[in-house]
């Protein structure tokens, strides 16, 4: 569908984690993200505890669970915005928040204001140089390299056709692709996504999910994605964390998305059905019904 930059042309992405003493890239590399008995407290209440998780380069991990259980908080803990109450957390062999531009982040959001007169490509550029002070030299070599990198990443997400339009006039799916490009523009080794499929229609959900899966596996980026619904991403996933009130389970989708495991986790009967095309359907999960709100309503 979209032109893809071959993984061999980007040797820089996995090199940093290899330098940390891990074994080779193809064998069993050290986890890029590691949580051991992690717990978090917000406002005196323990949201979750006992979370163990290893995510390796090129692995796609989903964080699932009911609303309000602290899925987004897990991403904020990995970013270092919210401190963990206990346990050990390592991101790229550092403490959370210390890996800088090696971690890309896409927060949960509604959408850009329709009247915002900034092009999509400018929003992508902000991901590259938006935190730099002062005025850039307009015709320098770095400026040209940056322009090339932006064009490359915009093409990677398949947004070249509308990247020059004001971002407020792009559709929800188009905005989400541009924001993924923004998060990827500095070639992060870890990509943290908070409900990126929320407020997208079904075709766009599966298209964006496929895009994230492709970036994860081909560009060797470790992806942690908070998701409301497992179905659009299920066949791209390598690993799943299910969070419930208090506890959590993690493992491969087959291990975790299982009637017995989820029933034990939630303490209420949950049934996991397998459809003929191999998809898993979770029934009875104690979750508020999905809200498909209009994206312009906010």
């Amino acid at each position, binding site marked *: 569908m979209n032109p893809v930059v071959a993984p061999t042309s980007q040797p820089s992405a996995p090199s940093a984690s290899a330098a940390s003493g891990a074994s080779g890239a193809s064998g069993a590399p050290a986890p890029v993200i590691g949580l051991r008995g992690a717990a978090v407290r917000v406002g005196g209440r323990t949201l979750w505890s006992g979370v163990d998780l290893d995510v390796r380069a090129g692995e796609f991990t989903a964080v699932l669970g009911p609303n309000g259980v602290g899925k987004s908080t897990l991403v904020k803990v990995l*970013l270092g*915005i919210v401190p963990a109450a206990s346990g050990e957390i390592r991101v790229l062999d550092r403490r959370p928040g210390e890996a*800088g*531009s090696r971690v890309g*982040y*896409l*927060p949960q*959001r509604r959408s*850009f*204001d329709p009247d*915002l*007169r*900034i*092009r999509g490509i*400018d*929003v992508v550029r*902000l*991901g590259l*140089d*938006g*935190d*730099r*002070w*002062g*005025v*850039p030299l307009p015709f320098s070599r770095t400026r040209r390299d940056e322009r090339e990198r932006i064009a490359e990443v915009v093409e990677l997400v398949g947004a070249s056709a509308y990247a020059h*339009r*004001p971002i407020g006039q792009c559709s929800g799916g188009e905005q989400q692709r541009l924001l993924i490009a*923004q*998060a990827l523009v500095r070639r992060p080794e870890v990509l943290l996504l908070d409900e990126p499929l929320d407020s997208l229609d*079904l*075709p766009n959900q*599966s*298209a964006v*999910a*496929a895009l994230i899966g492709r970036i994860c596996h081909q560009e060797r980026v470790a992806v942690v994605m908070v998701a409301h619904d497992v179905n659009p991403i299920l066949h791209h996933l390598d690993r799943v964390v299910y969070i419930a009130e208090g506890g959590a389970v993690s493992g491969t989708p087959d291990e975790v998305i299982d009637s017995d495991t989820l029933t034990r986790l939630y303490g209420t009967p949950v049934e996991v059905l397998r459809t003929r095309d191999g998809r898993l359907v979770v029934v009875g999960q104690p979750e508020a019904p999905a809200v498909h709100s209009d994206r312009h309503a906010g």
Partner: protein
Amino acid sequence: MGSPVLSWNLLDDFQLMWSYPFMVNAFRAGAIVAVVAGAVGWFMVLRRQTFAGHTLSVVAFPGAALATLAGFSLSLGYFGFCIAAALAVAALRRGREPGGSEESAATGTVQAFLLACGYLFMALYKGLLEGPQSLLFGSFLGITGGQVTVLAVAGVVVLAALAAIGRPLLFASVDPQVAAARGVPVRLLSVAFLVLLGAATAEAAQITGALLVFALMVLPAATAQVLTARPGLSLLLTVAIGFAVTWAGLVAAFYQPYPLGFFVTSFAFALFLLAHGARAVARARERRRAESGRPVLVGSAA
């Protein structure tokens, strides 16, 4: 002076105007103010902080009124009040998202109180000056060389500060969450921007008067953002439009017996309408081309 007549030989006209020192000062001050107000106003329009900007411009009035009453320099009154009000607005909405509805209430409180103070100062003064009218609607007759110097120095400081924080400020304005995650000090930038906004408002108020500051702060930026979505070009266009309407307003006010603020605002407003008209035409043409072209494809999933 007798009533001069515009000859439409612009070289002669400018030579005539340049023979009056007060006009030279007015052109200089107008140029400085147009550039500073345009650049800061561009960010204000992008950040949707026009209400905060309006409050700061209203505050320019009590500042100038108090300076007149207490007998200290007008510039001090303008800059002191506007920057203090900027800090007050920043303090009142700590921890809130920029442009939120909570901001309007707190900001409105400051605005109403200070406007009332300005009214009191004017009532106490009962002086010989033209009274509140020139403070509210602007005047170009009495600009001194010293005032131009103050405007220039303050303008250079504001522009230098804006250039230094420009990119992180743009990031924080467009995408505050990601900017914060990238380590951009979003809240600090928001306070810094309000201070710059206060300083730019204090500058503009000295030319257009407190009530017509928006002619230079909002209209050029709004017009430029209608015409282009490229940030750099849009910013340059804003400054150019502000400069053009200010000088055109000065020429018009020199030759016509009507006030400067009216001319500057009307020219800026006319350009704003023209820009919207141009965009509507361009859009209609685009739509017609799209309709006559290929049918719209519904994308298939993945």
